[in-house]
């Protein structure tokens, strides 16, 4: 395509968007609305994943050894843990270490432990897996080894988390697809009005021998302008609202002392990626909407 043709198409696209200002604005606001709803789901997903990851980091498997475990047995267990691919990191805690941890945890109540010695406690492995979802299988494998008294991990939590993660991802994708379809059909309707208003012009273009792409491009550009404006506005609104919510929730959480459980993720560098995603979605919606609505009128 020639440069002046591209110039012509872009200027036509802008002119038409402007001539149809009211309809264009209506479409832009629909794009904004859809992307806002999408944005809410996206933000919820991001926060869920972030918080779940936080929680997952804290998921640990505690392996308590028998009080009378033989050194050889304990070493064999450590070797097994050390060589397992699924293990992110582990600690081997002596009876003394577990005892002093307990003392530290109880603080002033540590008087309760008076008269007791570390021998009263167990030697222990504290294991963090790369994927906590493996916890059950891993524990079952380990439990066959000699010298283990008990293995403890938050099974319920692990199961629930993998379930939540899976459904959140599915939910976001479903919401995205539904909103895309709605927005595309709304843009298609706007462009259809432009196409209808300009059907005479299209007819003349066809009679003079313009090819289909030449006719299509200005409408596609019009759709993309609508999509782009919608995407950028929606991004601005989304990030503004997000910042407000972030500040409010984090402040309240701090006030109630639950900052460690409830925390809104600062988006930081993710803003650029989110803007990118919005813009791509907006442009694609606009282009697809236009192509759909022009198709019918090209068969002259």
């Amino acid at each position: 395509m020639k440069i002046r043709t591209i110039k012509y198409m872009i200027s036509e696209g802008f002119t038409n968007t402007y001539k149809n200002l009211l309809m264009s604005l209506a479409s832009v606001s629909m794009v904004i609305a859809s992307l806002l709803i999408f944005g809410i789901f996206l933000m919820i997903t991001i926060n869920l994943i972030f918080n779940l990851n936080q929680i997952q980091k804290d998921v640990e498997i505690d392996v308590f050894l028998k009080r009378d475990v033989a050194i050889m047995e304990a070493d064999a267990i450590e070797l097994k843990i050390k060589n397992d691919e699924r293990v992110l990191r582990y600690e081997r805690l002596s009876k003394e270490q577990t005892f002093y941890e307990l003392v530290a945890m109880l603080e002033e109540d540590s008087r309760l432990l008076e008269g007791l010695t570390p021998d009263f406690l167990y030697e222990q492995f504290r294991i963090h897996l790369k994927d906590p979802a493996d916890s059950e299988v891993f524990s079952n494998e380990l439990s066959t080894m000699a010298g283990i008294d008990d293995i403890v991990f938050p099974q319920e939590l692990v199961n629930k988390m993998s379930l939540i993660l899976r459904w959140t991802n599915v939910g976001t994708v479903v919401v995205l697809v539904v909103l895309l379809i709605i927005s595309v059909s709304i843009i298609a309707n706007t462009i259809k009005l432009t196409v209808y208003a300009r059907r005479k012009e299209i007819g003349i273009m066809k009679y003079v021998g313009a090819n289909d792409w030449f006719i299509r491009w200005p409408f596609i550009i019009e759709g993309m302008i609508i999509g782009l404006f919608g995407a950028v506005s929606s991004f601005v609104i989304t990030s503004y609202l997000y910042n407000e919510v972030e500040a409010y929730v984090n402040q309240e959480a701090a006030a109630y002392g639950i900052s460690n459980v409830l925390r809104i993720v600062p988006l930081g560098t993710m803003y650029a990626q989110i803007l990118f995603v919005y813009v791509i979605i907006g442009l694609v919606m606009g282009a697809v909407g236009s192509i759909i609505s022009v198709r019918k009128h090209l068969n002259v």
Partner: protein
Amino acid sequence: MIEFNEVTKRYSNGTIGLQDATFRIEKGEFVFIIGPSGSGKSTLLKLILHEEVPTEGEVYVNGFGIHDMDRSEIPYLRRGLGVVFQDFRLLPNKSVYDNVSFAMQIVEAQPRDIRRQVPIALALVGLSKKARVYPHQLSGGEQQRVALARAIVNNPSVLVADEPTGNLDPATSWEIMKLLDDINQRGTTVLVATHEKSIVDDMKKRVLCLEYGHISHDVQKGNYTNED
């Protein structure tokens, strides 16, 4: 140049638009298509433009087989054809000049060629002075001249006009027909569907007469009411 071979056009609702039409039009001819309303004049022209395709038979226009043609070829067929309608079909928001240059822009002509060709086409139809005016500021006859300028600006080898004077008074109709004749003199094949009895009789051109979709007469230097 233009060839119809036993062409029948049956519309999807069963109406016959054209039946068993066979004729040939050579390069440089001027042909009137006449006949009562509904006799198939517009159908014949639409087949030439590939606005409709024949149900049976073969249509050849400038080497394109209309009956068997790829969609992607249609623009190239049409670049060799100029077309004028009864209702002018100008773009109201474009000036006279832009209405004409538009036809060159959309076939991606060189700007240099556009600047040269558009004034020539406007001069040919006698509208040089009205280049900056908008269609609503023109009379019907002037609007049809703009349409004519647009139809010839890309130098088509065939000009197709469907009742180009249908909305015009007799004097203006004459002017338009004269222009069509001028264009024909410059080498363009011209086909005109019309009801203008007196003009057809006076111009002594080839006349192709349709009745109920059939070609009833095809006479050189004919009259509107030709009894052979």
